[in-house]
């Protein structure tokens, strides 16, 4: 929940020219939302990303109804990958708890573990692709396949983008020379992104196995 200083309606009905309002306004800090810049930035990115995926899903739902849709089998490996991603999301939650208690040594280990799991997920997806291609499900042989490859690619691209920041956060924790609050915030934000990655995958995967 975004904590605003004031409700949106109250904010938009202020009368800045009135003396009474002016006295209040003069003390205003200049901030609208009680979040750090990085946190708010992450939320903006997530919003854009959610819209991005939602639009794909809308087109998916629309396209699915047409007659030429042929469902493709999902390799068992995808369930394993889903579990791996779920595990990394859980571990990130733990890492956040540890970092809140300033146990940065534990956070280091957890972050390494998460990186390992993410790499496993990445290669797991590649292998799943390989299995499907072997069975003759090519990118353009049916529209359902196209969507499968497209969704997995986009999701993996988001994972790689997150990996860039995960690397930065891990380095920061290993150096351990910045402000603890700053490190805590980095771990927390990176964790939020990882939960987001898991949720997006869950929605996409659920969509693909249920269509």
């Amino acid at each position: 929940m975004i904590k605003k200083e004031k409700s949106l309606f109250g904010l938009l009905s202020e009368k800045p020219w009135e003396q009474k309002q002016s006295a209040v306004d003069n003390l205003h800090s200049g901030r609208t939302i009680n979040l750090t810049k990085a946190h708010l930035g992450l939320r903006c990115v997530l919003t854009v990303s959610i819209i991005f995926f939602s639009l794909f899903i809308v087109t998916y739902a629309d396209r699915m109804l047409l007659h030429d849709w042929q469902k493709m089998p999902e390799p068992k490996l995808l369930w394993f990958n889903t579990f791996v991603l779920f595990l990394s999301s859980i571990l990130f939650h733990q890492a956040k708890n540890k970092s809140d208690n300033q146990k940065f040594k534990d956070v280091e280990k957890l972050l390494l573990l998460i990186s390992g799991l993410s790499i496993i997920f990445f290669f797991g997806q590649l292998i799943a692709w390989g299995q499907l291609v072997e069975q003759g499900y090519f990118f353009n042989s049916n529209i359902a396949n196209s969507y499968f490859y497209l969704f997995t690619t986009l999701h993996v691209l988001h994972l790689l983008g997150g990996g860039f920041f995960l690397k930065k956060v891990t380095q920061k924790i290993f150096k351990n020379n910045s402000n603890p609050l700053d490190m805590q915030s980095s771990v927390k934000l990176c964790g939020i992104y990882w939960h987001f990655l898991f949720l997006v995958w869950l929605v996409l995967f659920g969509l693909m196995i249920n269509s």
Partner: protein
Amino acid sequence: MSDDFPEREFGIETKSSEVLDGEHMSSKKEDLIESEVPEQDLYHPKSFITKWIFCQDAKVIGIQYSITAISIGLVALVLSWLMRLQLAFPDVFFSMGPAAYYQFVTMHGMIMVVYLLTALFLGGFGNFLIPLMVGSRDMVFPYLNMISFWMYFIAVLVLVSSFFVPGGPTGAGWTLYPPQAITSGTPGSEGGIILMLISLSLFVIGFTMGGLNYIITILQARTRGMTLMRMPLTIWGIFTATVLAMLAFPALIVSCIMMTLDSLLGTSFFMPTMFQMGEHLKYGGGSPILFQHLFWFFGHPEVYIVALPAFGIVSDLISINARKNIFGYRMMVWAIVIIGALSFFVWAHHMYVSGMNPWFGFFFATTTLIIAVPTAIKVYNWVLTLWRGNIRLNIPMLFSLGFIITFVNGGITGLFLGNVIVDVPLSDTYFVVAHFHMVMGIAPILVIFGAIYHWYPLVTGKFLNESMGKFHFWVTFLGSYSIYFPMHYLGFIGVPRRYYEMYNSPYIPTSAEGLNEFITIAALVVGFAQLVFLYNIVSSIKLGKVAGKNPWKACSLEWQTEHVPPQHGNFGKNLPIVYRWAYDYGVPGAKEDYIPQNVPPSAVLGAKVEKT
């Protein structure tokens, strides 16, 4: 809406450096993190390259954006001349085939809408003005801001490179509708369209980085005392437009990605079953209408992404030059926000002839007409701001007045086209061309010109030449009316748009030919007048009259900097503290006819702010 953070608790935040050493009043953890870095840690450039090329200062990035946007805009201007010459005098100066004509139409439209207007308003004015007007030293993520510009620059280069690939740039129209956009037979269906889609995707990615900066700077990095409702309307316009862009651009990139795959990998996201020259193409089952929905879900908010910053800027120009506070400030803010929200519910009015359910069309006609209400409120408020104002008819004001007239004109024709029944016969005629050029071509461009004349003294410290400016205004204003007014008539008699030649169609009277020639001559004249403007911009850097501090006697913060032009870090040692809104003009009892935003009440005792 939660109210957990009453004003008291926030109290005086460690925003300006003078309260740096004070006690932190907030106990929240996130606040503490921020207050550890109370003053923004600015990047200080050391070499020419970091100062002017890979620069992280929002002011320089704004100028870089503006120069790039105007340069690519000139290419689009030349393309429009070539199209006009073809329409009025086919085969007299050169012979252009239909393929080239379509390519020029496409590139002209795309460049003007996306690469010129969007980039100039948000990238150019946004970067330069946001930190200055909200009282911040720079954008919150300067490095990201720099990358944003370079992404845009690369996007422009990719776009330009499509002129040089085999087959040339795409000629699919700026809407790039499939299936024709990627089917052979359409000019540029090989390389051109791919480069266009890549370029648009890069633009969107770059813009998202910039947009993140604009939104968070405006929300979180304002100076002390600057509440949202004390911000100049320019910032409100840019802010709302950026929010719209962040929500609408994903639709563009989604459609770009899917069409690129259709073209390169042979998927059928949008491509239906097709036969070409007796051969069954590899595609099948896709829905071209789906692309239209996606495209216009981006495309209509895009109109307001261009219009809202123009609304904001023109409100400030009018208020400053009428020496009156803007009439109905809150109403203006609400109108901007409401227009922005409504703009997501009108997209299908671009698709009335695509064969939709009549009730669907009815819904979109209704929402379209509802948008006219807040828009009309804005127009009334501009006019009421002028009423009994102490008007200074300088060049920014002339352009602002020109904007109001042009915008009303283009808006009224929008009411025609927004109604399904009236739209169907007018659809695909020159009436549509006239409408959208008036409302989102000429009107915002007039604001851009006004804004450049207004803020040029801030950027360079010199005035632009006034006589050249007057010449520029009158030729541009009257000239663009001569171009687009007759087009309404052409549309009424049914002259279709997108035709490269009218042949000897019996239903088109010969007078239409005369009109076409007249329009072309007007277009050439208006185009050349812009060269005077460009010369003015370049020469005034050296020869212009020195402007000094706050030459227009404006209230907003960008004019209250220590140095003119503002230097790295924008403000002096301390950030300004804001005590009033940006519209204290002609306040009774005050010595001067304006009170800048950072003047404390104790300095203007006896001044009584009038209520509007």
